[in-house]
């Protein structure tokens, strides 16, 4: 497979949206979550459509819209979204009213928008596109599934493009519930210090990142997306290393040819023990970068990593990220992203210079 990332649109807890320098200054968030830095949506979404949209829908539609604008494409051949939790705020509103009002006097708006394909549907509606539209909702594989769908479509059709994105939001109630599950730090921390902590828990994150994938090169591509592989509940570190080696072999590369490895460290000692082992193993000599200190932990965070890798290849260098082990000395040609969500959902992406 040979896919090109032609354009991106990313609303995240960092300054990533619009015409801004690539992670020039890092936004600090203190507490147990990283909220998105949001633009003025009126510049990106038709005001008539905006009034009903909850925050996640605005984030998704604006990120998708910016991506299409950058690509110079009015309507892509496919719109594919990945979201683990869907439109939580709308779900919460309808569910809360249903409980509080004992199933009486309920209104439809929040219910309609709680549907998991709302964002993809709103994008389709906005650009009046009758083309393929799909939504994947599989936890830590949501974005990866959407990406696979897009990749398959491009392989099946001789000339096409696909808009693929990931969206997930933090709400007050979702954060409270996930906190009770023990996902987050007990004490407030700074995202700049997150990966140095040797305690349980991480910081919650969120984001909306979209990519325009095409199967033909153009003059403005960020990078090539050359590989995607997911694996579920591996038995241990040996199986993880085998999967990584197998993935690289399938793409005729060795780990020494990978110029940068982006991993999903999130500051939780249990979660990070996998990365510790790999950094003493297969990634021993690799240059390593992290991303969850920038966007927080959430099931579709791989999308932020892919955006970061695409930007590194487009701009030709790494920004001064907090905790970066080595400065970028040589040209980066191949980036391997390895992320795992709660030790169940593991994914590998290979992104290469055009």
């Amino acid at each position, binding site marked *: 497979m040979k896919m090109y990332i032609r354009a991106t649109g990313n609303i995240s807890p960092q300054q990533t949206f619009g015409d801004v320098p690539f992670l020039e200054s890092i936004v600090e968030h203190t507490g147990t979550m990283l909220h998105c830095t949001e633009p003025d949506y009126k510049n990106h979404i038709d005001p008539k459509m905006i009034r009903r949209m909850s925050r996640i829908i605005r984030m998704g539609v604006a990120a998708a819209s910016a991506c299409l604008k950058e690509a110079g494409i009015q309507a892509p051949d496919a719109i594919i979204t990945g979201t*683990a939790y869907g439109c939580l705020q709308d779900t919460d509103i309808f569910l809360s009213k249903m409980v509080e009002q004992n199933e009486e006097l309920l209104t*439809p708006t929040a219910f309609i928008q709680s*549907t998991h394909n709302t964002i993809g*549907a*709103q994008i389709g509606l906005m650009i009046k596109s009758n083309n393929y*539209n799909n939504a994947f909702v599989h*936890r830590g594989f*949501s974005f990866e*599934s959407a990406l696979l769908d897009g990749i398959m479509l491009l392989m099946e059709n001789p000339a096409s493009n696909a808009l693929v994105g990931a969206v997930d939001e933090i709400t007050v109630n979702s954060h409270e519930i996930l906190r009770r599950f023990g996902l987050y730090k007990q004490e407030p921390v700074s995202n700049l210090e997150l990966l140095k902590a040797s305690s349980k828990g991480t910081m919650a994150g969120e984001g909306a990142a979209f990519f325009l994938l095409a199967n033909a090169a153009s003059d403005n591509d960020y990078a090539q997306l050359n590989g995607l592989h997911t694996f579920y509940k591996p038995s241990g570190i040996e199986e993880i290393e085998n999967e990584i080696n197998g993935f690289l072999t399938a793409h005729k590369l060795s780990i020494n040819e990978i110029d940068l490895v982006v991993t999903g460290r999130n500051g939780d000692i249990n979660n990070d023990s996998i990365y510790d082992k790999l950094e003493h193993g297969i990634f021993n000599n690799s240059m390593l970068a992290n991303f969850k200190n920038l966007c927080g932990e959430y099931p579709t965070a791989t999308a932020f990593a892919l955006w970061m890798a695409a930007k590194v290849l487009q701009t030709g260098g790494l920004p001064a990220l907090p905790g970066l082990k080595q400065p970028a000395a040589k040209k980066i040609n191949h980036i391997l992203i390895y992320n795992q969500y709660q030790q169940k959902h593991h994914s590998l992406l290979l992104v290469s210079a055009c």
Partner: protein
Amino acid sequence: MSAPVFIAGVGAIAAIGKNTAACMESFRNGKAGMGDMTYLDSVHRQTIPVAEVKYSNAELALMAGMRPNVSRTALLSMIAAKEALQDAGIDNLASLRTGFISANTVGGMDKTENFFSQFLADHSKGKLRDVVNHECGSVTELVADALGVKNYISTISTACSSSANAIFFAARMIKNNLLDVVVAGGADAITKFTLNGFNTLMILDGEHCKPFDENRKGLNLGEGAAYVVLVSERIARQLAKPMYCTLSGYCNANDAYHQTASSPDGIGSYLAMAGALKLSGLQPADIDYINLHGTGTQNNDIAEGTAIKRLFDPVYPKMSSTKSFTGHTLGACGSLEAVFSAMAIHKGIIYPNLRLQTPMKDLPFIPEREFLQNITVKHVLSNSFGFGGNCSSLIFSTL
């Protein structure tokens, strides 16, 4: 790429039966599954009929071999997926690349509803085990883990077309040589969330629904689960049993008209049907039966009917909405109707469209009202359309 994908096994549970054979028996007897609300605890119990699966969670748990306190959606999903895998009878499953692609619309919402009533009063209250499987993907994983499927697992949620898209995605994974065998379909239990949601849209019929009737008043919600086992040509040849049919065509298109309403001309439905026909290499006249989306709402049936008219006029195949038996099972309906489509080919039968008294005056065709048997059914078109304009059509063909 053009190698066909075969259906090797089917499994279904719905208001009209706990397995595929029981559902077929209900069709034969003209026995619909709607009735008074028995298992769902809602204030609308007296006023809104539903098509519930006629077993308690405890009974379903025994059938599924799972704990009774997991989401009803997971229980239904497991029962149908297990039936489909057993039916396929693939002995060497462990040595094949196997996937589980499932669909649902609200995950473990039935349990989240319990959690939320306590949580809203006090944020430290509510049993976490009731909310741990809230996510759509979590329900899929409960079943995948119980089935022992590990190579590829995913969940699709595109409202009422979800499980048609799951089957479609699964077939493409086989065609792209990423998997050998996929259990694909969907599940949804009726929840208070969806019941009240559809009630706010004022599209629930207070009586038993009348799809494609001029005086139709809306839909009845149903629940259930259904899966097909899709296999590659290579695996199909190895299996001792005959295949049901092939999945010869599929297409996903978007109406891009309104968040909930279908466009008057049903452009999304038309494009989905036309795209599926094109992929299968068939002409409209080749289709012997259309399993309609046919929810029974004013809006769906006229949009779908108008799109059918545009594509098929003047020669119409037999058609019916099996939602007149099962109710609208949301995330399960695409796969439930896929199983019914496969069985229509396999057994040479056409299902009746119940309670159709006054044909729609704006449509030049009338869906089939009788149960037909001993006829040749070579190609079946199955429609599934949902909120957000999501329209998907599948075509099943005889071997």
